[in-house]
């Protein structure tokens, strides 16, 4: 099997909050291969955004890494100096955020911002860079790119602004793209367009994509592989088809059954709602134990990862009942 492009290995983060240490991530591990879209799915508070920030090393100062490593293309990201990391960010790993208009400079026209990104990574003069910027904007599906390039961010719609950001990102030709809920607040028809765009970009450039979302529909349609998170712990990792066809971890099963589909009716009365993520203690055990139908006494003490034969489907559960 090929070497993983991105390897997150037993990553743990803590923060000091309300007079105690709170575990944000607990031994999070997963692999991402080139030319693959990997989804990180979970509810809010599950730690998915923190994971992505950790990969970019953009964690706020109050958060401390208490364990684990992140290997990117063979390099230990935690061993790099801030200066070296800055060269990785943007050019080799790029991130697309939730609120596109907030990520753009409100005082600079869209086209100029893309042109600046181009100049950072290619040796072109101003007019050459501007021309390349227009090309990029057309490539990401911005109609009437020449006129749109002269617009300021506040004059752009949400979807348009997100495309501008993706254009800027393309200018840098990253090998890994992290997208953190890139379509929050965008209309569903625009959402479909943006995800088509991300998939096109991925296919063209062969980059790896880490997609963070809470929407299982998006996971099903966009991702190749998915990791399910709960309360800072990874519960299950599997290829997308596998996860929906044979969800092994009780949390995954609960998650899937609690989703309302637009093409199928579920009974509102029988839906088992998930209890919200409770503030975690710093135990070593599984945080889903209190709600888990397969709980064993061992679950409170430690966590085990159970693999299938091909090493593609990983379930973090102590109970061998989980894998059938």
């Amino acid at each position, binding site marked *: 099997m090929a070497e993983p492009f991105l390897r997150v290995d037993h990553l743990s983060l803590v923060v000091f909050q309300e007079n105690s240490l709170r575990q944000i991530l607990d031994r999070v591990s997963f692999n991402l291969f080139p030319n693959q879209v990997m989804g990180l799915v979970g509810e809010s508070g599950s730690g998915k955004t923190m994971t992505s920030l950790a990969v970019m090393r953009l964690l706020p100062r109050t958060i401390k890494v208490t364990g684990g490593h992140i290997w990117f293309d063979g390099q230990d990201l935690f061993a790099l100096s801030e200066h070296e990391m800055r060269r990785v960010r943007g050019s080799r790993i790029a991130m697309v955020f939730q609120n596109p208009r907030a990520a753009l400079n409100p005082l600079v026209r869209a086209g100029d911002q893309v042109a600046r990104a181009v100049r950072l990574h290619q040796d072109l003069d101003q007019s050459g860079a501007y021309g390349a910027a227009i090309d990029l904007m057309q490539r990401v599906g911005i109609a009437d790119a020449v006129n749109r390039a002269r617009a300021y961010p506040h004059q752009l719609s949400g979807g348009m602004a997100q495309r501008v950001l993706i254009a800027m990102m393309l200018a840098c030709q990253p090998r890994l793209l992290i997208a953190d809920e890139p379509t929050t607040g965008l209309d*569903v*028809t625009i959402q479909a367009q943006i995800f088509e765009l991300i998939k096109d970009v991925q296919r063209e450039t062969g980059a790896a994509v880490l997609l963070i979302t809470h929407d299982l529909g998006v996971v099903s349609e966009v991702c190749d592989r998915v990791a399910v998170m709960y309360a800072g712990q990874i519960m299950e990792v599997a290829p997308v088809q596998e996860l929906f066809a044979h969800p092994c971890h009780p949390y995954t099963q609960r998650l899937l059954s609690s989703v309302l589909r637009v093409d199928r009716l579920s009974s509102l009365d029988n839906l088992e709602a998930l209890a919200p993520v409770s503030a975690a203690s710093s135990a070593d055990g599984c945080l889903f134990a209190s709600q888990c139908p397969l709980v064993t006494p061992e679950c409170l003490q430690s966590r085990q990862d159970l693999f299938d034969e091909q090493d593609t489907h990983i379930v973090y559960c102590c109970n061998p009942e989980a894998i059938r």
Partner: protein
Amino acid sequence: MSMEALLRVENLHKYYREGPYVIHAVNGISFELFPGEAFGLVGESGCGKSTTARCILRLERITAGKIFFKNQEITALPPAKLRAWRRWMQMVFQDPNESLNPRFTVRAMLHEPLYLHGLYRREAQILEALLRVNLEKEHLNRYPHQLSGGQKQRVGIARAIMTNPEFVVLDEPTSSLDMSLRIHVLSLLHRLQREMNMAYIFISHDLSTVRHLCSRVLVMYLGRVVEMGRTEDVFNDPRHVYTQALLSAIPIPDPTVRRQRILLKGETPNARLLKPGCGLQDRCPFVRDDCRSPVPFIDLGNGHQVACVLANETPTISKKTGGT
């Protein structure tokens, strides 16, 4: 059994003046609401659904059109008289963080509707409403900033049902909530509706939610009605191109489902530049000449109405495999 419509909206128009421009937010919406039914008002951002709801509750001044409540015209009632009718029509607002007055305790907020409408047995009624929304007595003395998002939203719901209204307008009540909370609130709303025999006007951009809660639905685009009918008809057999595009854009959490996606070109046009004819004419892949003149409603039976010239001709484009 024919029922008298509880609420009748006739040809509602609402225009805003913004500098030199006129924004046509609502352009001739007509519909009826029957006692005890859950009626969904769906569309993407900017379609005018929230504005329509605010007009119905007279939170905005109506430019043209009529509104009848129990056959009494309330369009132009003076504020003093209108207030008496308000106890029968209440609203649950979108953002629980903004719709509760930060200086009021929960008790004060729940007490006020009773006080204003001269209803008695207040303490008992307040407690009853509180318990109906799964809150506890101890919450009565809390201020909004001491409550969680889900609790705040439930206070908003309790406030709306205090006077036993005939119908409640719910403006995206679950949009700002977590996945796990969403289901709690939805099943709560479902139960309340049956217990108290209230009608709902449920406004949402989330079609899965609407499908599960509402028996009839109205799809809006650019301030106009695009399609209207029973939920099963509109969702299983959408006839307007926009409805089909909307439904096909929603990601389904099931990799086995194969669908054909209808992609609309471009983005929703500005509500300032309104052309006669169908609002979708610039984006529709099947546009014809007669789409540019005012589009008549085509009645497909059972209350299923479509404002599209192609309603009868084109077979449903996005027939899905499987699903109910």
